[in-house]
């Protein structure tokens, strides 16, 4: 049937990408439809029961300031909260929380259900409807045709998903859920390049059969910090994870049974992630390591299922059981669900623009694991960007794009559309060049302006954040212009604070730079300083203590921007540029970089090719507008 109601935007898939895309469209006033295979698995965590983590915490907070839901959702359903890398500098602090998977999923479902402008239906999309390279809508497995002006596809691992446990295989989108067998064929027909990737998950264990007393508990922080800048107070339990290790016996069981692994017996040929190797991979590749860490994590406050982080495997059930029982604390363990590997179709992301719209078909956007990424946070951040851009496309607005110098989300998307990926792409802080500026703690400060201008942030929230910024600047200025003198009394106090005395007139900012001093200690020295809110205090300290490095990083960004601002027109004709090798020309024509900066990041595009391009663009100056 041709469905009588037509929509502005249709979202295909109710995973982490689809949720954000749906909500932001509805919140921006678009008439939105979400189609997903199973309503009961909206917001399902396919793998580990956790949100955030290194670099991922940044993504969650960026989604939050752009009007997304992930941060708020985990703030209400977390089982423990922790800042990772606390012992290192603020640039790499990352928030992570264990989630009550069930509560997480249900709260997401309710949030969607109560969102204005959003219809939700349980149907599987089989085909994308396109006319004249412009999207028209979708056709589902029930034969329904839904019409819309934009479509966002977020199908995760479901397209032609195939699961491997030992030498057994079966078709599935994820564990027991049905796969989407037809959609990727429809995408192929539209001319998109589709390939295969692989990922895996760990066995789920029965808590009643684990000897936790023998293991090292890992609780969350005593003073948990919420993900969302909107959350005023966290009211959640602090349930520990447990740490244990594999040992030589474990490794022996695995090595003896490699023929039971679909990876090593050659059944699975697609590429899995290097950073998230299966335990069999780790044992083989890092033969010299005698043990690997395993974290046992709660999946749900009430359930007895335990997630065994660090044990991704697709060995046979028997081997899984045997090696598990060699591990301390797991001697008598029972498996509730085995680990498995899954192979699925993904769309080569170099076929996308920075807005996540396909270059081939107008109005068709892709987000999440379908673009070759892995992880809930990576999915959510693409979901929100694709969602915003679907809405902006309909509203006739310029695409909403974050630069590598603005957000981890910007780094993620730029990497994907510029370089593509050969393995499931996961975010790392090391992928971001400018992470001293792109910190997690200042996410809302750095993105508020952009978010507000795009209509993603309310005026009240914006004003509140601007007030914080003003306050921080004011305090910094005060510290830089308040001087103390080397009087006997001052130096006595300094000694008491455990720091060097001063010999000349010194401003307070300079003192604050000393490792052993902080704002509160300065107040002891100089009681006129006002008491500050915890967050403001932290930002002031970071800004002052790291000033030298922040300045250096800002210079690095300036250098970076020089090339980003050398724009290449969309209709630029590379065939006219002599001197480029066919390979390089082919790449440039495929990726269509929007700037020299982006062109420089395309793999295989040599510095020599860039020089030719720059010379050529300069020669044709009239068409070469420096947008800066």
């Amino acid at each position, binding site marked *: 049937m041709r469905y009588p109601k037509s929509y502005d935007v249709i979202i295909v898939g109710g995973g982490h990408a689809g949720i954000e895309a749906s909500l932001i469209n509805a919140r921006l006033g678009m008439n939105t439809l979400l189609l997903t295979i199973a309503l009961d698995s909206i917001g399902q965590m396919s793998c580990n029961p956790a949100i955030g983590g290194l670099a991922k915490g940044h993504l969650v907070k960026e989604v939050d300031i752009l009007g997304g839901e992930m941060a708020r959702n985990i703030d209400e359903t977390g089982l423990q909260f922790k800042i990772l*890398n606390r012992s*290192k500098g603020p640039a790499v602090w990352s928030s992570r929380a264990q989630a009550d998977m069930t509560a997480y999923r249900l709260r997401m479902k309710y949030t969607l259900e109560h969102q204005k402008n959003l219809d939700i239906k349980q149907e599987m999309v089989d085909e994308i409807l396109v006319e004249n390279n412009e999207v028209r809508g979708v056709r589902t497995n029930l034969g329904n045709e839904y019409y819309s002006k934009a479509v966002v596809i977020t199908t995760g691992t479901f397209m032609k998903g195939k699961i491997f446990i030992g030498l057994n295989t079966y078709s599935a989108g994820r564990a027991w859920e049905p796969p989407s067998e037809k959609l990727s064929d429809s995408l192929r027909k539209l001319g998109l390049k589709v390939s295969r990737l692989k990922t895996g998950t760990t066995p789920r264990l029965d808590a009643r059969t684990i000897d936790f007393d023998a293991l090292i508990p890992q609780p969350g922080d005593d003073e948990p910090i919420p993900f969302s800048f909107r959350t005023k107070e966290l009211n959640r339990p602090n349930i520990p994870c447990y740490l244990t290790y594999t040992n030589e016996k474990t490794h022996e069981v695995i090595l003896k049974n490699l023929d039971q692994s679909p990876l090593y017996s050659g059944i699975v040929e697609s590429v899995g992630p290097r950073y998230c190797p299966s335990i069999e991979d780790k044992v083989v590749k890092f033969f010299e390591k005698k043990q690997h*860490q395993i974290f046992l994590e709660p999946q749900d406050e009430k359930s007895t299922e335990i997630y065994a982080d660090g044990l991704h495997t697709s060995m046979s059930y028997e081997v899984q059981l045997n090696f598990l029982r060699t591990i301390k604390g797991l001697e008598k363990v029972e498996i509730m669900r085995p680990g498995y590997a899954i192979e699925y179709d993904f769309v080569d992301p170099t076929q996308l623009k920075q807005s996540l719209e396909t270059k081939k078909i107008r109005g068709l956007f892709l987000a999440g694991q379908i673009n070759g990424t892995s992880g809930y946070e990576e999915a959510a951040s693409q979901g929100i960007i694709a969602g915003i851009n679907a809405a902006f496309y309909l509203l006739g607005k310029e695409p909403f794009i974050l630069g590598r110098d603005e957000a981890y989300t910007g780094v993620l998307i730029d990497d994907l559309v510029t370089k593509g990926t050969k393995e499931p792409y996961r975010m*790392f802080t090391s992928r971001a060049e400018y992470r001293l500026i792109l910190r997690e703690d200042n996410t809302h400060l750095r993105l508020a302006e952009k978010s507000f201008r795009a209509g993603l942030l309310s005026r009240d929230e914006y004003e509140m954040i601007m007030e914080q910024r003003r306050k921080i600047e004011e305090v910094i200025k005060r510290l830089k212009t308040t001087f103390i003198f080397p009087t006997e009394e001052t130096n006595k106090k300094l000694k008491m604070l455990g720091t060097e005395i001063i010999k000349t007139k010194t401003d307070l900012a300079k003192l604050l730079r000393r490792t052993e001093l902080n704002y509160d200690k300065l107040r002891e020295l100089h009681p006129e300083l006002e008491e500050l809110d915890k967050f403001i205090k932290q930002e002031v300290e970071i800004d002052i203590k790291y000033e030298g490095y922040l300045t250096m990083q800002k210079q690095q960004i300036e250098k970076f921007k020089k090339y980003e601002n050398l724009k290449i027109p969309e209709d630029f004709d590379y065939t006219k540029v*002599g001197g480029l090798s066919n390979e390089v020309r082919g790449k440039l024509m495929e990726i269509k970089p929007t700037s020299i900066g982006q062109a420089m990041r395309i793999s295989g595009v040599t510095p*020599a*090719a860039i020089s030719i391009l720059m010379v050529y663009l300069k020669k044709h100056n009239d068409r070469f507008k420096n947008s800066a």
Partner: protein
Amino acid sequence: MQKHDDDIIAAIASGQVEAAIGVIRVSGKGSLSLLEKVFSKKPPYEHRKIYYGFIKDKFGDVIDEVLVNIHKAPKSYTGEDLFEINAHGGLVCMNKILERLFEVGARLAEPGEFTKRAFLNGKLDLSQAEAVAKVISAKTERALKVAERQLQGQFRSTLDDIRDKILFLMAENEVRIDHPEEDLSSITQAERLKMVSEIKENLKKIYRAAKYGNNLFNGMVLTIVGKPNVGKSSLLNLIVGQESAIVTDIPGTTRDIVKESFSIKGIPFSILDTAGIRKTEDVVEKIGVERSLRAIDRADIVLAVFDSSSELSDEDLQIIEKLKKINSEVVAVINKSDLGQKIELSKIPFKHKVQISCKTGMGLKQLEDKLESIALKGFSDRELISLNASQMESLKKAIEMCEQLEQDIDNDIDPALIGVDFLSLTDYLDEVIGRITNEDMLEVMFKNFCIGK
């Protein structure tokens, strides 16, 4: 004159040295109709054909008998219509032909401009063009060999070593950040410091090899000072010859009369203010000490000439005082040693001293060795390289960055901040050792460290 990339350009392509046959190259859109105006053989001109005829001046008189070969766009070296005139009438004649070409609309090509056009028209990629340019610009056989060696990438292995070390250290630093929960057996602080210091030392070595390598490419400027009659003019004649061996100035343009170029042991040198030193047969000009000191600020090396056969005079002492204050290298040339030694050498405070006789030629070899050792600082040709000014500047900053890194690693500061140091380091080294991307680093990280949950 405004210069454009679509002008017709012309230049002598065979070098400036007198040779039996000289070649003038002309390139640009419309260059063939320009040929028509000056050449006795009229079109059609075909690609890769050679035509015999005469170049005539504006009155129709023959300048020279020539062969002209034709290369049509886009198949020529520059990718444009191009022809080459092979003339045998010597420099004077070639200059006349050039002037004739200018009359009908060509302009003098700038150094490297043919190559630049080849590059712009897609005939060369930049790295080739750069290499070719370097080879072209080499003024001596020796510089050419060094340039070619660098082209063949012998210096690559040092760069690769630096690159590998940086990547490893970056990956190691990143592992601390991104995978703190892993109990990765990483290297010790002392080992990290050692690697940084090795990187730094290597960079310094490159810097020095390039600094002195550039002397070989760009040459060095000499000046000769000394009181009247001490033998300056004789010295000039001895090392340069009566006439300069190489003239860098382009014929037809105003000639810079005060500078003469020549080479010693394959190192190009030029001498400033030779007009003040050289004496022609009829004019016997005695120049004063003041004039003799005129060019010392612009010189890399000052040859201070003293008379071995007499004691140091006030004028000599005055010169010594002046030279003590300058930064350039000073070589005391003790001349007229064939007349015996009255001069007290210990009173001459300069490190480099050479005893010589311009009359007998004694000591010339020692002087040349001295000049070579000052120019190349004992680097062998195998070690020397050439880098451009901006690469040198970047290298310098990279070396400073290594120092900062050493300090920061020593203080065991936050790895994220060390990451900022590394980013600056790789930014600086971009032009020298090639771009290091995060992707490269991750590659190394996954290979060397067991990562992942």
